[in-house]
């Protein structure tokens, strides 16, 4: 590969980071292809922000190498790396105007005052804030501040744009709009972006690829659809969307389909090749449909909650208690009644067994969304 092909790519090679005795990142290897938006997703304390900060140069790996655009940047300080970052708190400089904020990075890299101002103005235009340059950050709304932070990072035309939970300080409605804007901007300009969030919905919405992290390791890497439909572990199944994880028996596999038995009920479904025997099944709450009790697979309603567009049930079955959402709001099943259950074609996945408590890192997939 030539250097130009590598521009915008990121590689973590066996990176480890510890703070004293605490190990933040165990052993992370990761490749990010140019022009993609990759999300680091995980619960708090999983090491996603540390990973991002190591990429920015704000933390230094304890061991391992980090490459940006094919160049080893492990020992380079933040200001000498070709990345820029949007902070959770935006970190707009309160004593500078919006235009000065956006021009700051340009001036730092040696651009003259006039070209810097012009480029800053273009950057503000890009995020729809043309004409706001003279204001102080404190005179803007939260959403506007966020866009200034994006503009400030983008005008430097970095190889990689880093976003650290950029939406967490916005209210829920605004969040949806801004994440769409960021995604559009990224696809239009074609830069590489690394995006940290703990919100799985946000991750599913914007990413080309998601790296789910847990305890300082990548638990699974893949396109949003892969993660949702083929979770590699119980953790992933429950973290990406919600899932009931129940024990099942795999009766056989052939031609991309598997036959399983759950609570005495046999079911055939699409599946990757799996060995026969005991296994576990991830069932999405909306993948269970309710029917009349017919002596087959079924259970007893433990609780029911009417939520307007759907009803939430807890149903006790032979396989365990299932959490079920049912769109049939016109008929709420009373607590204590018996219901029959069926499984939908989609939303049910066999979780591959793994030796270590459900954590598994599959080999790097070459698939893109």
């Amino acid at each position, binding site marked *: 590969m030539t250097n130009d092909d590598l521009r915008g790519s990121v590689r973590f090679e066996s990176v480890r980071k510890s703070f004293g005795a605490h190990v933040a990142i165990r052993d992370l290897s990761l490749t990010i292809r140019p022009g993609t938006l990759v999300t680091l997703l995980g619960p708090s304390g999983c090491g996603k922000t540390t990973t991002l900060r190591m990429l*920015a*140069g*704000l*933390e*230094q790996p304890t061991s391992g190498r980090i490459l940006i655009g094919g160049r080893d940047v*492990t*020992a*380079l*300080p*933040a*200001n*000498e*790396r070709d*990345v*820029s*970052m949007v*902070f*959770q*708190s935006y*970190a*707009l*400089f*309160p*004593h500078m105007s919006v235009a000065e904020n956006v021009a*700051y*990075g340009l001036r*730092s*890299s040696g651009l003259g005052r006039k070209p810097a101002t012009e480029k800053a103005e273009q950057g503000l235009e890009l995020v729809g804030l043309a004409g706001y340059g003279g204001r*102080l*950050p*404190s*005179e803007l709304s939260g959403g506007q501040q966020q866009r200034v932070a994006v503009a*400030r*990072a983008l005008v*430097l035309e970095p190889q990689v744009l*880093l976003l650290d939970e950029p939406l967490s300080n916005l209210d829920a409605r605004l969040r949806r709009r801004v994440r769409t804007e960021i995604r559009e901007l990224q696809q239009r300009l074609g830069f590489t972006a690394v995006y940290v969030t703990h919100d799985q919905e946000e991750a599913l919405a914007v990413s080309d690829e998601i790296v789910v992290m847990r305890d300082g390791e990548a638990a699974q890497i893949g396109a949003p659809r892969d993660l949702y439909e083929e979770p590699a572990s119980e953790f992933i199944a429950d973290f990406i969307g919600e899932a009931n994880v129940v024990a099942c028996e795999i009766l056989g596999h052939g031609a991309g389909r598997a036959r399983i038995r759950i609570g005495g009920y046999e079911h055939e479904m699409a599946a990757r090749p799996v060995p026969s025997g005991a296994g576990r099944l991830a069932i999405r709450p909306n993948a269970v449909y309710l029917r009349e009790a017919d002596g087959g697979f079924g259970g007893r309603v433990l609780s029911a909650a009417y939520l307007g567009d759907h009803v939430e049930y807890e149903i006790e079955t032979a396989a365990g208690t299932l959490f079920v959402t049912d769109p049939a709001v016109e008929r709420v099943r009373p607590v204590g009644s018996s219901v029959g259950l069926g499984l939908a074609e989609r939303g049910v996945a066999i979780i591959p067994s793994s030796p270590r408590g459900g954590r598994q890192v599959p080999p790097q997939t070459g698939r893109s969304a």
Partner: protein
Amino acid sequence: MDPRVRRLDLALLVAAAAFLLLPWYRIEGGVLGFGWFARYPLDAEIGPAVVQLFLRGAWWLLPLGLAVAAGAALRFRRPGPDRGSAVALAGAFGIGWLLLEGLSIGYRGWNWSGWETLFGPLAEGQLPLGLGGMALALSFLLFIAFGLAERGVMRGDAFVVASITILVGLVSTFVLYPIASLFIGAFQTFDGSFDPTSFIANIQDRSIWSLACLDSEYSCGIAWRTMFLAIVTGLGTTLLGLAFALLLTRTRFPFKRPLRLLTILPIITPPFVIGLALILLLGRSGVITRFVADWTGYDAGRWLYGLSGIFVAQMLSFTPIAFMVLIGVVEAISPSMEEAAQTMRANRWRTFWTVTFPLLRPGLANAFLIGFIESMADFGNPLVLGGSHGVLSTEIFFAVVGAQNDPARAAVLALILLCFTLSAFLAQRIWLKGKNFTTITGKGDGGRHVELDPRLAGLVYAVVLPWLAFTVVIYAMILFGGFVRTWGLDHTLTLEHFEKAFAFALSPDGIRWSGVAWDSFWTTMEIALIAAPLTAAVGLLTAYLVVRQRFAGREVFEFLLMLSFAIPGTVIGISYVLAFNLPPIELTGTATILVICFVFRNMPVGVRGGIASMSQLDRSLDEASLTLGANSFTTMRRIILPLLRPAIVTALVYSFVRSITSISAVIFLVSAQYNMATAYIVGLTENGEYGVAIAYSAALIVVMVLVISGFQLLVGQRTLRRPAGAAKSAPVPSPAFSEEKPT
């Protein structure tokens, strides 16, 4: 060009200039005089290191040259961790060798006979280091820093590594080295040889440790007297301070705002001025003494001159400090605690003793320790009131300046004093750490402080009001005492004292400053003005490193810097005299040593203020700047400094004012050429010229009030101009003067 190459070039440039161009040794009369230029460079006293090497055969400078050459050779290697290690190694070797040869070879050759037996005698010795030597030391430190940065230390941030390296170098030179010299001084005789006998004799001296006062009429040893005084002063100031604090927060005392002004008094009052005013009031021919004698025939005698007088003066001087500490503690107790107690049927008396007071206890202990340290370190009041029967701090002074001239004894006394204050300081840092019951969290916590029980309030009023009146009389005495001819004898109003001190005349060549005070006044202003920005810079840089950077030994680093606050000024003074009187560094008698002394004595304030305000700045602001491509120096200059402006101004004003009022360390370091106002005033009192002394003191106080209020106005305006923008980032009011005392 690669920044790693560029910055190494800078260090090499400094090194080359230091070794090849700049005068290596100290030049008598100052390097800024440029009188030396005529004989430059081929002169044994003036020449740069390379000339010394060839002209005088100063072979011991050769390894330094080799270290520089190694750095220059590495310049052309590819930057990377390997080169980094090599450069750092060259620097470490250079600085190590510089230390070794500097400490080993003095004016007349080897400093230690061991070297002589090993290497044979030297033909000639060397002078103290000059500009060249200092610059080379700096460049070696830069070698180390840049080398380590190239290895990726501190995320490869050269500015940060260089700052740490240089600060460690400075603190080692100007805090640790003098203290080490003090230890060595205690074990040395006049000719410099090691001699533990004098140390043993000194440390066992009966005049230090005698306990005779317990069972006879002889007085106890000076160490016990000093400790006794410090304990009593600590207790007294704590109780009085508490009374003041309670008065302010828990009664309906009508004049609360003026009462807060009290906190500013200890900063603007030169330490001996209280003693001076006391003499004028209560001394042998003091106003009150005379008045009492005239009316009752009772002669109070000389009670003021001794421990009792020092105690009164210290109570006056340090109560405001205890007040300052305790007001914070008292206000920090959440009112809801007391309200909760009351809803549980506790009356106000019970609430105070079961809730408020227990919560106050750590604060009281803290205030006591501060009072203890202050009393130990106090030099001005004992000097004016104690005469030769003073305390440790004055005894140290008289051991070196008086007829005794016994530096070894001074060093031993200084070590004893240092042990006392350091124990209190350590107790404060370790024992009180984490015992803080501050209950207000910063979240809105409604409620009002419960008023004191009437019995308690009555007691507080009974203590505070007379004391307040006394303080007012004392300060009136200080401000207007200079207008009376001779206190106690001739109360005619006169301007003659001011005229003597501050006379000036307009002549055709400009203003002629003929008053006796002008000389020391201008020197003081000049030195304080030079020291202030340096103090602020060093202090804030340290704060930046401590708050924003993680590095091994950071806590030790911070501790060392704060430590210099716990070292009594007298100890600093004597240790500077011992350390900087001979090669490798000779500074005594210069203005430089005064500036350095002020910088390192006042720096902890800048550090503390900087830490406080920097902790309020969101860390992601500087990280944002870094990821936007600015290096940490630019970040410091364009982001942190503008947002810290109030803290900077505070540090500037504070160090300026403290330089003016300081006496204890200064009195050892002044010279005929560079006399400071405080030292001059003390000289006046020693000659009995109380009128001029008090007039000069009043003038100083007025100047400082003007400076402080001027600066406060400036800072106030700044915050007005940027109300919205600074709202989140810089809500640093001016607790300017509320946190300046050692803790």
